[in-house]
């Protein structure tokens, strides 16, 4: 097994907006009149090409996620982008990290779409679930205070829909569905691996430990990521098991170039944009009332007041580097810092290394990706340089021949009675004269 796994990612920002001095929030209130669909088309397709490229560059997986009504990440439906990646890649795992399951009227839609993607991709889907950030509650009628309950219930419903034979009735507090019977079911058994992105809250850590899911940290300083990962490992121990290394993934935008100085020159404006512009959000929009419990809000504001955490929009580039929100430098610097970072926090995977970050031009993303693939990833790989998934048995045969060899004919060959006839006809041979002619 490799020392570390690398996941490419793209938030799909849209940066052709007024400067921050001219707006209060990049989310919710900044008008969509600033979105030019002609420009949007160009960058969407560049972003998709970049995500597709992660497979041939050798990444362990590629990720997409869901955000609404903002310019930081213009991917309101991650399953749509995932569907394109399914069709344009062959073997790489694709993470939808994640679908914001409390926000939508019927969680079964997510169960269905993820199952479709999993079946079509041959079991390559990682299914992430999130609450959606606070801002997202302004875009629909879900009461922020219901967020956690709806998340938990939607999760339980989706897992049951994937694992229990239907039909069954769902009688929840928030969702009532008379007939749950999603078709298709996912190809991975019992279901796609579940990743839970988190901001370090105790509730999320307990949830992940209880279900033995994979935890991934969103943007955070190194010390805080470590605190959260240690908390998760302790919680797993309390439940009587050791957390495997691959249970936790860190998220650290990483940019590499020929020299330290050149890397900073190239990355500074774009990485700063993500935090200073993309995440410019006033408190009351970031944390609508009820999104946090009063107790969590008190803890958070207390930490803020003591200066332990700073709003991300106010972090300087030097602070981002110092606290290791981001890693930037020459191949040697980046290798060393990723090694130190992941040893320190105990991460099994790194998200957003060698990826598109902020409004970088396409050439810069590809340059970052190439140097990252050639000079960083091999350091953390076995001698053959392969991602782990290429050493493992795939969840589905890779060719039709392998399928036929392994599965033979379907267990129940399709048969039917053509209305007006009495004979049960086997469709495989239904067109042969001795079968079809007798029914005519």
């Amino acid at each position, binding site marked *: 097994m490799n020392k570390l796994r690398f996941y490419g990612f793209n938030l799909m920002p849209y940066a052709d907006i007024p400067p921050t001095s001219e707006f209060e929030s990049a989310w919710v209130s900044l008008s969509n009149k600033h979105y030019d669909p002609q420009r949007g088309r160009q960058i969407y397709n560049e972003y998709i090409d970049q995500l597709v490229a992660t497979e041939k560059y050798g990444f362990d997986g590629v990720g997409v996620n869901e955000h609404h009504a903002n310019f930081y990440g213009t991917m309101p439906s991650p399953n749509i982008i995932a569907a394109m990646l399914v069709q344009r890649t062959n073997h790489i795992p694709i993470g939808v990290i994640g679908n914001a399951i409390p926000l939508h009227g019927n969680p079964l839609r997510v169960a269905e779409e993820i199952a479709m993607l999993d079946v079509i991709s041959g079991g390559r889907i990682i299914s992430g679930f999130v609450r959606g950030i606070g801002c997202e509650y302004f875009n629909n009628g879900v009461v*922020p205070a219901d967020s956690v309950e709806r998340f938990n219930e939607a999760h339980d419903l989706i897992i049951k829909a994937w694992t229990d034979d239907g039909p069954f009735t769902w009688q929840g507090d928030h969702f009532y569905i008379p007939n749950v019977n999603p078709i298709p079911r996912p190809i991975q058994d019992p279901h796609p691996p579940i990743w839970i992105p988190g901001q370090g809250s105790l509730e999320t850590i307990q949830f992940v430990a209880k279900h033995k899911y994979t935890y991934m940290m969103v943007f955070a300083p190194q010390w805080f990521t470590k605190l959260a990962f240690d908390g998760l490992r302790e919680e797993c121990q309390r439940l009587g098991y050791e957390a495997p290394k691959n249970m936790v993934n860190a998220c650290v935008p990483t940019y590499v170039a020929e020299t330290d100085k050149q890397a900073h020159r190239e990355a500074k404006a774009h990485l700063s944009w993500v935090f200073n512009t993309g995440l410019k959000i006033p408190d009351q*929009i970031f944390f609508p009332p*009820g999104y*946090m419990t009063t107790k969590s*809000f008190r803890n958070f504001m*207390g930490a803020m007041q003591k200066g332990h955490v700073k709003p991300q929009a106010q972090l300087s580039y030097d602070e981002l580097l110092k606290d290791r929100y981001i890693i930037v430098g020459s191949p040697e610097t980046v290798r060393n810092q990723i090694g130190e970072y992941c040893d320190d926090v105990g991460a099994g995977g790194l998200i957003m290394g060698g990826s598109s970050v902020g409004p970088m031009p396409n050439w810069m993303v590809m340059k970052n990706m190439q140097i990252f693939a050639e000079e960083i990833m091999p350091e953390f790989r076995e001698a053959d340089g392969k991602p782990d998934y290429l050493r493992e048995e795939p969840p589905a045969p890779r060719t039709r021949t392998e399928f036929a060899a392994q599965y033979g004919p379907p267990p129940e060959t399709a048969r039917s009675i053509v209305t007006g006839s009495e004979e049960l006809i086997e469709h495989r041979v239904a067109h042969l004269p001795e079968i079809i002619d007798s029914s005519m």
Partner: protein
Amino acid sequence: MSFIDAVDKVEVPRPPKHYTEPSFAEVLGVPIAYRRQGNGEAVVFLHGAGFTRRWVPMYEMLAQKFDFIAPESPGFGETPMPPWFRDFSDLSILYDQLFEQLGLDQIHLIGYSMGGWAAAEFASYYPRRLKSLSLVVPIGLRLEDNPGVDLFQLSPQQLMDRLFNDKKVMAEFMEGMDDFDEGIHLYSEMSAAARLIWAPRYNLALERRLQRLTCPTLVVRAEDDHLVPNQMAEKFATTLPNNRLVMIPETGHELCLERPAELARELADFIKEASK
């Protein structure tokens, strides 16, 4: 098994001015905080989404003339939020039960702002409990062409600026509001408000249900409300049967604090007439 679990009382900060100790009545497991003073006709006042825990001058003026009762809704002031609490129907049933326990039969009901919506909901469920209904800059109907500002998108400062037209009164009531615990309590109260009014910000059924009312009704609007469109009060006035509409001049949404004497006089005159 218990169908009604008791909810614990909560510790809340005390604002420096106008704070008084409340009484409590346990209603459906919830210790409901209320303040009550005076004699005469029973007048119940339902608060808006803020400035709780205080016995403000307007209350005192009404308590000089009536048996004045100001309860605090779940999640506001010193009344805790039970985990089952969801909407105005829960609130209406709690208040009906509270009035029962306080020995109140028929009452004059006043609702201010979000409390105006609460009062309208209560009235639609229990019209025969009311001797009169007064709504002061209420919300809760749909203004098709004017949804108004989204108060939840406003910073505390922006909210205060829209609430108060008289910045001197604002300064007086903002004293102590920058306290850390007070800030947390404000988030908690806004969470309770969001529980009730996040979406939709109206109840279409009210227009129909309010036609059940037979008691006199009063709507009070402010001359220049920067938080809720002035047409909202106008729409309530045309919706409510037996209605009188009055306007308090030179004030905005926070008229209870800015124009206590004028508002108390309008309310008292109306209630006295309705009591005849």
